[in-house]
């Protein structure tokens, strides 16, 4: 219990640091966000309009006051309003985008670990053999592919040539197939490599020999002794997955026009919408902290040796 509390506080501190850092960085940024904003009629802004916008967003206040306001708004869950739309708060959009990214991430994770663990185990059982060596090279190749290129290859194959899985239109589940395959399969190659190494390590361990010498069935040896121990590092991998998934999803979302956090962030960077960039950074930090926390809990559950440290 004490451990959980400590981690929770730790997480809060990190968020605070990230928020402050973002604030500092944004205000160091050159360029005025309102240089290119135009009003409703589409005309270029006049100096007056720019000033008005600055006042609305509080950008004419001295920095310390802006910081205080920033923190207060953050606490209230208010991430500011869009520069472009003038009056719409950006929080709901960011949250909605985050939700869509999480959906993609979850689907990709299922593909990733489903295929990856299976392959890794299969390879380890067949080691050393021709099939194992071939797959080792294959996973290296897939792992090195650029994720966006792979996405286009899949689009080319399935959408253009075979006409399945429309990228635009259609049911969400349909639209989810190709992007999650793209993200998931490349991840699966990495997972397979990692898991194979873990399994081989364990396979040669002394306690596996003991288990065999005790006369346990092959199934019991593999499941209770080999897999059980090889899965502990996999849990760590699971915890690391979220940052990698998020990175990859930026590209995948672009390829498949999936309106998640990645797409939002890229558009914001190009459009110089600093507050959206800040908001996405914060949400991403939050996600990473939560996933680290969950991974840590899982790890402690799986490996009795990790419980010794509080």
């Amino acid at each position, binding site marked *: 219990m004490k451990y959980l509390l400590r981690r929770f506080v730790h997480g809060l501190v990190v968020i605070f640091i990230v928020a402050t850092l973002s604030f500092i960085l944004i205000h160091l940024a050159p360029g005025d966000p309102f240089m290119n904003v135009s009003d409703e009629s589409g005309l270029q802004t006049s100096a007056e309009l720019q000033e008005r916008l600055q006042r609305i967003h509080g950008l004419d206040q001295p920095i310390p006051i802006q910081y205080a306001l920033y923190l207060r708004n953050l606490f209230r869950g208010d991430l500011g309003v869009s520069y472009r739309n003038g009056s719409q708060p950006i929080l709901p959009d960011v949250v909605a985008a985050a939700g869509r990214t999480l959906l993609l991430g979850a689907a990709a994770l299922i593909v990733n670990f489903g295929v990856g663990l299976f392959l890794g185990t299969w390879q380890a059982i067949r080691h050393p053999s021709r099939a194992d060596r071939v797959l080792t090279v294959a996973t290296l190749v897939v792992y090195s592919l650029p994720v966006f290129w792979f996405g286009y290859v899949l689009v080319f194959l399935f959408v253009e040539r075979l006409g399945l899985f429309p990228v635009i239109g259609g049911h969400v589940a349909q639209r989810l197939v190709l992007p999650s395959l793209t993200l998931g399969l490349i991840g699966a190659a990495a997972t397979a490599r990692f898991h194979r190494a873990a399994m081989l390590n364990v396979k040669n*361990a*002394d*306690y596996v*020999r*003991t*288990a*065999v*010498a*005790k*006369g*346990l*069935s*092959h199934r*019991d040896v593999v499941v*209770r*002794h080999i897999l*059980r*121990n090889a899965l*502990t590092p996999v849990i760590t991998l699971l915890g690391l997955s979220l940052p990698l998934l998020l990175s990859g999803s930026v590209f995948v979302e672009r390829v498949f026009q999936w309106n998640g956090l990645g797409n939002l962030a890229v558009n914001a960077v190009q459009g110089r919408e600093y507050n959206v960039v800040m908001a996405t950074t914060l949400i991403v930090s939050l996600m990473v902290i939560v996933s680290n926390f969950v991974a840590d809990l899982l790890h402690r559950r*799986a*490996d*009795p*040796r990790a419980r*010794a440290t509080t």
Partner: protein
Amino acid sequence: MTPVLSVSNLTTHFHTADGVVRAVDDVSFEVAAGETLGIVGESGSGKSVTALSILRLIEQPPGWFGPKSRIELDGQNILELSSKELRKIRGAEISMVFQEPGTSLNPVLTVGYQVVETIRAHSKISRSEAWRQAVQLLETVGIPDAPLRARDYPHQMSGGMLQRVMIAIALSCKPKVLIADEPTTALDVTIQAQIVDLLIDLKKKFGMAIVFITHDLGVLARLADRVAVMYAGQIVEHGTAAQIYGEPGHPYTKGLLTAVPRVDKRRGELAGIPGSVPAATAWPAGCRFHPRCPSRLARCDQESPPPCVIGPGHTADCWLHTESNEP
């Protein structure tokens, strides 16, 4: 009296990228019920491979058993059993204790569970009954607070304790033979003595035969009824403990005994056996010990000596004894 375990012409080779490793070459010995056989030799002598071969714990490939090899338990040749039959023997009729207790137990399962696992693999009793038996076994091997300690994980126990757990696991199904592969080598000297005492005690309680493998002659002195001395994959001398320690026939055995430093003789250098064990891919021709033997004869590098009887149940493979006694 028929022996409970009989090993004849056991040959175990490994086919590696560096050549064929002839780890065990034509080894034969017998163990009677309730008897303790000690197998002693330096590292590289093939004693561990012999132990692993008995339970077929050798991975094939790269391992390979010679066609004449026979390992008989109550008349059945272990080398010819199906994997299902083999599993029934492992842990139940013949069980094994390994050298490094720290790494020989699964780190994510409690020690109690690992005993229970063995029991339930060989009999259909309930979990609670198996657990009760496991706790009792842990008590028998001398673990204090057994009901509590049974729920500990291996990393929470010391080496000596873990070795006791391994012995408990090994004896859980009342095996006929217990193979102990250097069980005390990784432990402190004081703990070593405790484990040997424990084994002597358990021998009386359970009555199993023990095959005790070690490089330490001192340990065997108290425990073994008979001793086999191994060198370079072969048994070079075989007899009762009294015979081996009292009237060693093979120059290698004599060398081993002389190498043990004596507390009562303060003067003199430490005696060793000159040279070192040759690589198992290229054993010397003739008698494999000849390059290091102080009593070498001319024919020793030509032909391999046959076993020569030098006493009742005492044989030594050495040309020095052929003039006096043909087998």
